[in-house]
């Protein structure tokens, strides 16, 4: 009997493409999960207000926009009374802004009454 020469089986390009796609997706999911885990465990998530549901309100952006960010006390030069007076004046305006925030982290916010738990 005559032997029939079968053509060598070549890997299919379409199948390779699918495998590549799956592999790329798995790697992407894995690295994203690791990144999110680090983001959460390091505590950065709690400091980040750009996460969903924590974005600043419109009025907040306007309020904070024109803060005295331009002022920077000069590190060099002869120090005179007028420099100290200007320094204290600018510093006091920052302090005023801090004091204007009413009762930050006050205990009563988490009281039974405030949360709706009756005694």
């Amino acid at each position, binding site marked *: 009997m005559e032997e029939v020469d079968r053509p060598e089986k070549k890997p299919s390009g379409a199948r390779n493409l699918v495998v590549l796609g799956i592999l790329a997706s798995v790697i992407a999911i894995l690295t994203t999960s690791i990144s999110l885990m680090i983001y959460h465990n390091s505590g950065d998530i709690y400091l980040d207000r750009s996460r969903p549901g924590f974005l600043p309100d419109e009025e907040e952006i306007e309020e904070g926009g024109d803060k005295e960010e331009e002022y920077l006390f000069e590190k060099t030069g002869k120090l005179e009374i007028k420099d100290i007076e200007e320094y204290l004046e600018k510093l006091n305006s*920052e302090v005023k802004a801090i004091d204007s925030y009413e009762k930050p982290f006050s205990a009563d916010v988490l009281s039974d009454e405030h949360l709706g*738990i009756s005694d």
Partner: protein
Amino acid sequence: MKKYLLIATVFLAGLISLPAFAISDVQKSSITDNCSTIKENLEKIQKSDARARVYLGSYYEVILTKFITPLNVRLVENNLSTADLVENQNEFADAKSVFTNDYISYQQHLEDLVTIDCKSEPEAFYDKLIKVRQKRKIMEQDVLKLRTLISQHIKLVDGIKGKL
């Protein structure tokens, strides 16, 4: 002797297994009934606290980097530096980082609290709430400490005027 030791062990084990704070039946049923409202309130608190942290944190950062630190550098240059002002700067920087770390810890506990099913586990929920309250108290103290350090700094800087 062995008998007393056994009684003491049983008593201590009982104490340890008790929840930190006893919750009344009224509180328990109130938590179960108002579970969704309580959670909504907690989520609002989470958001307003995030706002407070960013607001205060940015002012503390400005005060440290644009006021206190450059002033101390200039005072050194002018041979007017005092140990009190340097100590105040170090204390302020430490208190600022403590404020950030305590906030992370507080938010982690608050998030755990929100994830507890208060309908089915009112006791565990209340127990966690007590812990969150303690963490919040620490935050309040951190804010007070930073404010005290700023006042102290202003007083010290005011005192420099006499040397000029």
